[in-house]
Each structure stands twice: as C-alpha cells, then as structure tokens.
C-alpha cells in the first residue's frame, strides 16, 4: 500500500495518529527556489491542515452572526426595507457586503466551499492511510523480546521450529494476525512468530472517516435536492401544496415547484391547553392540530383521505415531505361594510403574537375593496384582557376574555400598484386616521366608522397554525453516517492494537546435541496500555503458550518448568 505519508506505515508510530502528518516536499516558502507549483502545493497543504479547517469552521460560525442580527432578504424582506429607511448610509454599505443576504453572499460561499475542500482534502488521505494501516502485517519479531514491556521466558523440549509452530497455532486460535519468517530464512532469522490483534481499531477509525465523507455528501444532497416551505393555516382552511399556496418556499438548487410533495391539507381543529395555575401558569401543556389530508392534490380527490394529529416535534410524512407544526396564534374574524353598505371584507385575519406576552397579538386589516375610500385597521387581539391602570394587558394565553383594540384609517392602502406588501403591515402614509383613540370590541360588537365610512364587526376568532413543510433527502443518510461515525469512533477508542512476539532458540546446553531444550521468549506490547487489561491478557496468553508447548512435548520427555523471566 503506497501512502501519502512517506515513512513506512506503522500504527505504533505516534506520527500515524497525528492529524497533520509531515508530508514530503518543500516545507515553506522562502527556502530555496520556490516555483508556482511549490506555492500551489504549499497552499494545498495549508488548506488541508486541521488548523485551517478549524479556522474556517470558526469563520463560518462568525459569518453567520450578522445573518441572525440583521434582517435578511429571504426571511424578512420588509425588515430590510425598514433598515434601509432607518439607516440609509449604513444600510447601503451593509448591502454592498451582502450582509442582508448572508447565506447567499459570495464571501460566505467562499468560506464554506473552502471548508468543504479542506475537509475532503484532509479526510481522503487519512482514509487511504488508515486503509493501509488496517491491512499491514505485524512487523518482524524484534531480536530481544525480553526488552519489551511484557515478556516471559521458559524452556521446552520441543525443537525451535516446532515450538514456533505450536505458538503460531495458539495465537492464531486467539484471533491474532500472524507473520512468520519467510521460507528459507529459518537458519538466519531464527524461528519466530509475530502476532497482532485489534485491527478493529483501524477498522473503526476507517469507518469513522468514511462516515465523515458520507455526512458531507448527505449534507450536499439535502442542500441540492431538499426544500423548506412555510404555510400559515387558519382553522377550517385547506391548502394544496403548490407554490401559490405557500407563504415561503426555499427550494434547493435542483428543486423546482414541480418537485413539491403532492398533497392537500385541511386544518379541522386546533386546540392548545395551558397550565392554569402554579409557577408554570400560562405555559402550554399540550397541542393538538387535527388535520385531514389527501396525498392526491387537486379537484380529483382520488387519494385516500387520512387524518392526523400534529403536535410539536410530531410531524406527519406525506409523499416524501415532513409537515411540522411550528407555531400558532389567533385569527380574529372581521366583517367590514363600506360607505355604500356593501360587505367588502369578511374573513379570519391572522394576528401575530407580540412581545407583550400571553398571546397579545398584533395584526392589520386591509380592505382594498372598500369604496369610495380604502379602509385599513391596525389591531391588537387580547385573549384574556384585563385593564391595568388604563392599559389593556393579556393575563393568560387562552381566549378567556377576548377583546380587540382597533385603530381605523381611510385613504389609499398603496396596493393599486408598486411592490407587494407584507400582510402584517399597514402603510398609512396616504391614509388618514379615523379615530383618535383605539376602539375596544368584544366578540359580536361592531364599530361605526366616523363620517359614514362604514362599519367593522368583530364577529369572533379562530386559531391558526403555522406549518413547516420540509424535504431533506440527506437527512436519513446523514443520520446513518453520523451513527456510523460515532460507532467507528467508539471502536477506535475502546480497542487497542496489541502485539505478541514469540521466539524459539536452541538452548545453550542443547547446542550440538540436537535433542536438548529450546528457550522460548514471549514478548508483548500494546498501545496506550496505561489503564491495564493487556497485562492480564498477556499473562494468560503466555501461560497458555507454555502449557501448549508442554502438551506438545511427547510424554517420554517431560521438561521441568523453569521460572518465568520478566
């Protein structure tokens, strides 16, 4: 096995376990003639070093910080616009640096591509090296076995060749990989057996590295062929999983609208229970979103209709996609008639929980169809309203005393042309405020707008849930590879490579007689033997070798046991 690393592969060489093995070639720039190819090689070595990989990983983490501090184009486009109006000078610079779309910025791509190259360039050579190491034979037996950390010596009546043969059989029976002197080498090199065990350690190490490749590939798979979408669904509403019905759609590189999972889903009922007393009062105790879905979207509805109860972290799998319950809230229902008495708005309007706590929620009502002037309302929904010193507060997240507080506007909503608007924001720049103070409404109550502009009725409220629809083809492979990596790591931690050598020489008194005794030396060493274990294993093995040798001697020639050497 040839190897990236130049020295002969020896797993007991500490260098073999190093992350940054020394490699041939020029060490650094500045020493002698340094051409372009040397520079490239030097750059490659730097890139694939563990140190640079860690630096890149750190940069990746650092680079994603602005993505969580600043509003991002993909997730919060209105927030970006707001930032631009608030800090025009700063924003234009931040925009030039791509800080409003960090995860698509060229510098961010540069970091993760370099990291990817670094990891692959680091892991592939290690894989080869480990594969080589797992296949190597143990080295030849050293000449002086008694110098090894563990050793034993005894004599047997067996001739050296037979003694070595018996030892080989015993060691082989214990699952050792053997190496014997090559044929014809007997007289010169002596009779010896080299045995090694614990190759599973290398196999574990190899598994870990291969699994790392697998994780990288899985992540890439997920990024290229996966997608993530969001949809807010009001109780009683239905949606088909298609681009126009999704609030957010983040497809992978090779994903188009046509690759969306095929289903139609209806939220039949959503209930959430809250802890009513004690320290945890107001905390949700259970969620239950009963949905009906069919795997066949469209009007045909030929697919089997199924029901499922979604819970947090309990998604439903449909056609390769997972549908998660990720949030919920209240959607007050409003009915608006305009100045002509026509009903121009009648629907549940999702409000979003604000920082006020206890599901004090905010939202807007846009009545584009109102004539002669468009109407708009900013509203606050208070599930359990209590008047605290003149301000309305929500004291419990359940709707025990629901109230909405509305401020009405009339004029131009700015929706007849221009860029799409957020449904949660009202552009009041071309509107006039109808009332000085917010108006409170209980369910069923109406409010007449001044100047005969119309009426708004708070007819009731329904819950909504937000769903995340994800498809990640790399998820299962990544999980399997991650588990394999962990298993490999455990193997490589728990199993020690250990070697046992046996040498059989003709004893001094037997020289020339041909029937004399044979001195058997057994030596052993293990890597990282600090915690023990090998000591006992070696003692047992030495004893077994000795008794095997004794048993192998013909009964007529008993040999008294000799004291063990150390």
């Amino acid at each position, binding site marked *: 096995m040839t*190897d990236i690393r130049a020295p002969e592969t020896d797993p007991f060489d500490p260098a073999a376990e190093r992350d940054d093995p020394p490699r*041939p070639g020029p060490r650094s720039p500045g020493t002698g003639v340094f051409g372009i190819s040397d520079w490239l090689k030097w750059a490659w070595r730097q890139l694939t070093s563990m140190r640079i990989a860690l630096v890149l990983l750190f940069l990746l983490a650092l680079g994603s910080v602005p993505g969580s501090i600043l509003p991002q184009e993909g997730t919060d486009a209105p927030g970006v616009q707001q930032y631009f109006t608030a800090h025009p000078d700063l924003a234009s610079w931040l925009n030039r640096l791509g800080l409003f779309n960090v995860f698509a910025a060229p510098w961010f791509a540069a970091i993760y591509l370099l990291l990817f190259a670094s990891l692959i360039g680091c892991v592939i050579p290690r894989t080869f090296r480990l594969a080589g190491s797992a296949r190597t034979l143990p080295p030849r037996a050293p000449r002086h076995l008694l110098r090894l950390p563990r050793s034993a010596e005894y004599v047997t009546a067996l001739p050296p060749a037979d003694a070595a043969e018996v030892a080989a059989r015993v060691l082989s029976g214990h699952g050792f990989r053997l190496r014997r002197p090559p044929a014809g080498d007997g007289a010169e090199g002596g009779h010896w057996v080299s045995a090694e065990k614990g190759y599973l350690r290398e196999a574990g190490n190899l598994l870990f590295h291969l699994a790392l490749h697998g994780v990288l590939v899985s992540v890439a798979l997920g990024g290229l062929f996966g997608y993530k979408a969001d949809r807010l669904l009001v109780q009683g509403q239905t949606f088909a999983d298609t681009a126009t019905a999704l609030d957010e759609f983040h497809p992978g*590189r090779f994903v188009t609208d046509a690759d969306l999972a095929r289903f139609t889903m209806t939220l039949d009922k959503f209930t959430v229970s809250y802890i009513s007393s004690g320290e945890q009062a107001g905390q949700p105790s259970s969620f239950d979103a009963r949905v009906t879905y069919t795997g066949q979207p469209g*009007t045909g509805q030929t697919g089997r209709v199924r029901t499922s109860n979604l819970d947090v972290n309990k998604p439903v799998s449909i056609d390769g996609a997972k549908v998660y319950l990720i949030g919920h809230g209240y959607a007050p229902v409003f009915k608006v008639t*305009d100045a002509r008495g026509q009903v121009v*708005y009648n629907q549940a309007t999702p409000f979003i929980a604000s920082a006020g706590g206890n599901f004090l929620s905010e939202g807007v009502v846009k009545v584009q*169809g109102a004539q002669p002037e468009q109407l708009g309302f900013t509203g606050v929904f208070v599930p359990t309203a209590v008047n605290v010193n003149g301000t309305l507060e929500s004291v419990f997240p359940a709707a025990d005393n629901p109230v909405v507080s509305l401020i009405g506007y009339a004029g131009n909503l700015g929706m007849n*042309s221009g860029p799409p608007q957020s449904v949660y924001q009202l552009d009041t720049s071309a509107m006039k405020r109808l009332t000085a103070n917010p108006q409170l409404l209980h369910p069923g109550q109406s409010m007449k707008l001044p100047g005969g502009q119309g009426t708004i009725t708070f007819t009731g409220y329904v819950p909504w849930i937000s769903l995340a629809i994800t498809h990640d083809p790399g998820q299962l492979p990544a999980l399997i590879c991650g588990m394999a990596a962990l298993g490999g790591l455990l193997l490589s931690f728990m199993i020690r490579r250990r070697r046992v050598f046996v040498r059989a020489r003709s004893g001094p008194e037997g020289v020339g007689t041909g029937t004399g005794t044979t001195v058997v030396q057994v030596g052993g060493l293990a890597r990282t033997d600090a915690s023990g274990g090998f000591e006992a294993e070696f003692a047992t093995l030495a004893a077994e070798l000795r008794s095997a040798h004794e048993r192998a001697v013909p009964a007529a020639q008993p040999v008294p046991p000799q004291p063990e050497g150390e």
Partner: protein
Amino acid sequence: MLRALPIRTRRRTVVLAAAVLAAVLVVVLVTAWPGGGGDSDATTVDGNAGAVLYPAGHRPVAPGFTGTTLTGSMLSSSSYRGQVVVLNFWGSWCVPCREEASTLAAVAAKYRPSGVSFLGVDVRDTTASAQAFVNQFHVGYPSVGDPGSVITADFSDVVPIAATPTTLVIDRTGHIAGAVFGTVTYSDLTAILAKVTAKGG
C-alpha cells in the same frame, strides 16, 4: 521505502488536489447556475420571458375542474369545451392583479365577438373581498373560487404557476397554447390570442 519515491507521493498529492478542486468547481458551477429554467419547447412573445407560446404538438392538456363561482353557482370547465378560453389566476390581495385588471377587461371586450371566453380563478381569497374587487374593476366574466389553491395545484402540474397573476390561454382542443407569468400587457395577451384564434391555431 516510500521515502525513496517522493515523486510518486507528490504526484499523488497533486492528483488528489486536482480531484478535490474539480469537485469544488462542480459545486461552484452548480451553485452559481441559474435555477429553474423554462420549457425549451416554448417560444417567448415579443422577447418577454414572462409571455410564452407553446407550439402545436407541445401544448399541455389543461386539467378539468369544477368549482363555485363568486355568485354561488357551480361552474365546470367542460362547459367551455370547443372554445378558446383565457384563464386568469388572481386574488383581490394581489397588487399586480389590481394593476392588470383593466387590461384584462379591455382584452375580454375586444375578443368577445371572436368567441373567446374569459374565466377567473380566484386564489387564496374570500368571496366578500373578491366580489368587491369584481365590482370595483367591473370584471365582466365569472371567477371560480380556489381558496385552497387546489385548482391552481392541478394546473401547476402542467405549467409552472409560481405566483399570481398567471394567465393561461387554452385553445379549442383544450390544450394550453400560451401563458403569461406575471402582469399581462395588452400587447402580449393580444399577440397570443391572435395566434390561437387564427384558423387552425
């Protein structure tokens, strides 16, 4: 042993580096390549990428549907068989839909004598808001309510409807002959209709 063969190991490093760089290059190209991509069979109208004409023989079959109109009556696509139909996907909440409403009304009036029927699919909307829209823009043709985007999903299987507004022109044989993705312009829609209503079109 290998110390004696530094050239071999060096070559190996270079090969490996080249392979990894090639892989990275592939990833970069893949990431930088513009996503999506239109139907290669379709031709654009007046260089507008959002308006396309599908040549005869490459026209997808329009899915059939039934639904409730804004005025509460049932409507089936089968009753339009044999006619050229302009199918407009819209919503009262959609800004460009409001922008194109008067254009659609004008084209509908112009092509009514030619036997072209206009039909709306009102996506993710409520009857009250949609009816207000229809009144405000004097939309003279019916619309089928599609609050759950269910009809839209069926059509999305054959033409890439990514958002509203999208306008499809269905020929007399029930095939989708042309489409405008985004706000329609008078010239784009009339150019498509001129082709589709022409004899044998």
